[in-house]
């Protein structure tokens, strides 16, 4: 393995200096986002430094229970974000969506780590945590789209929905057209990312591995496997979450409960 070229703190500060260019453009164009940009860059730095310290600690311990707990914490945080961003009430939907997210991501991550990568031990933090994070991060975006589209469409087409029910459709049958559209919207970006990978963008994980000293062939094998895992988890979680959440989102008369919306 090649020696990794570290970035000095001074060089990193220099990279921060590059932000003056977008700041000048924004000021010149009257885009009122300079303050947000500085805050976002600051937040990112603090968060990542904390994560680095934390990961170093976790990697050193490499304990099954700590690693598993950290994955569960990531699932809970991702779920909080999904529920809020989809405009749904935490109190009503959180447990259902948590179950859906766990049911969709854990088997995929488990398969990826235990069957494809096979680290020793299988719960090795160096693999388990970053891979879970990548899968969850991508599921998060897809699930926000799926849930938001699904429930907003039923709310906006209430008459159409009741017509389906009055024509003899079960709840599942009445939900079918909205679920199809929601899943399509959620899955399409991941498919297009897969299709253009390597042509439009060099994926972050692959780039990171190459910079870290891995051979490009090893890096692309990881990237392909990760992309496929992300895609599987995206489809499974979006589908399962739409199904699981229906238990809390509809009344016994199969009508959408308006109480589920937070806005």
């Amino acid at each position, binding site marked *: 393995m090649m020696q990794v070229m570290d970035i000095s703190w001074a060089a990193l500060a220099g990279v921060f200096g590059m932000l003056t260019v977008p700041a000048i453009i924004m000021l010149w164009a009257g885009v009122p986002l300079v303050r947000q940009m500085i805050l976002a860059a600051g937040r990112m730095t603090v968060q990542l430094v904390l994560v680095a310290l934390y990961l170093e600690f976790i990697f050193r311990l490499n304990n099954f229970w700590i690693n598993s707990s950290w994955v569960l914490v990531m699932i809970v945080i991702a779920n909080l974000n999904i529920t809020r961003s989809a405009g749904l009430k935490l109190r009503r939907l959180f447990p259902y969506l948590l179950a859906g997210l766990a049911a969709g991501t854990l088997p995929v991550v488990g398969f990826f780590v235990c069957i494809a990568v096979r680290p020793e031990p299988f719960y090795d933090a160096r693999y388990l945590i970053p891979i879970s994070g990548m899968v969850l991060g991508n599921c998060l975006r897809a699930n926000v789209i799926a849930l938001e589209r699904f429930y907003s469409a039923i709310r906006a087409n209430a008459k159409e929905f009741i017509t389906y029910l009055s024509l003899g459709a079960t709840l599942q049958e009445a939900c079918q057209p909205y679920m199809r559209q929601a899943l399509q919207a959620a899955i399409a970006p991941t498919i297009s990312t897969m299709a253009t990978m390597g042509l439009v963008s060099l994926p972050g994980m692959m780039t990171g591995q190459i910079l870290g000293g891995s051979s490009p062939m090893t890096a692309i094998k990881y990237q392909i496997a990760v992309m496929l895992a992300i895609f599987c988890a995206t489809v499974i979680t979006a589908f399962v979450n739409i199904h699981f959440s229906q238990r809390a989102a509809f009344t016994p008369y*199969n009508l959408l409960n308006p109480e589920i919306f937070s806005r």
Partner: protein
Amino acid sequence: MIRFENISLRTQDHLILDSISLEITRGNKAVFFGPSGSGKTTILMCLIGGAVPTAGTVLFDGEPLTARTLPHLRKTMAFIGQEPVLGATGVREALMLPFSFRANRARTPSEEQIRHVLKSLLLPPDILEKQTSVISGGEKQRLALARALLLEKTVFVLDEVTSALDPRSRRAVLTLFRQPDLTLISVSHDPEWLALCTRFFKVEKGRVTTQNTAPVFQEEAHEKEGI
């Protein structure tokens, strides 16, 4: 067949329906009339389980309307709104939509039955090949009726269903609904529709203020609409 026992529906700051009690039996041709916003459409919604009363009981065939009994009610009743939802891009697809649902698959109509129903509603057979986006409001209303007839529904819950029909189509629809075995529960101010009806319910501010079989209500309904 249908009984409302002290039905009320209240939202956070509005009383939409206020202690409504009424009974409609099989074969009745019932019509609700009254000013806009008085709660007529909400009454129809409560009938089909599209709105849930906050107080009182809806009884269907003697049984309270619950999640368990609702599928039976929805199987018996056809609901068609003022602007009917066809739910598909093609007319044939829209007409066949309910037969894609498990509950209706065994009743999938033959081509001959489809053409017969279309003819009875004065719809040309080539309409089947059109897109729903290019047909008129009146054609949409008749297609929604055709779909309910193909489903062999016997109870029709109709909200201003003749509003977009030309006189000739309206007469065809009225002729169909004169059949004594069909039950109509409707909202309308159409004089010809009212002439077909046998039960009249006047709705004002969420209450059924009068109900009768006397045709005097027909005149009152006309006056409300300035007919």
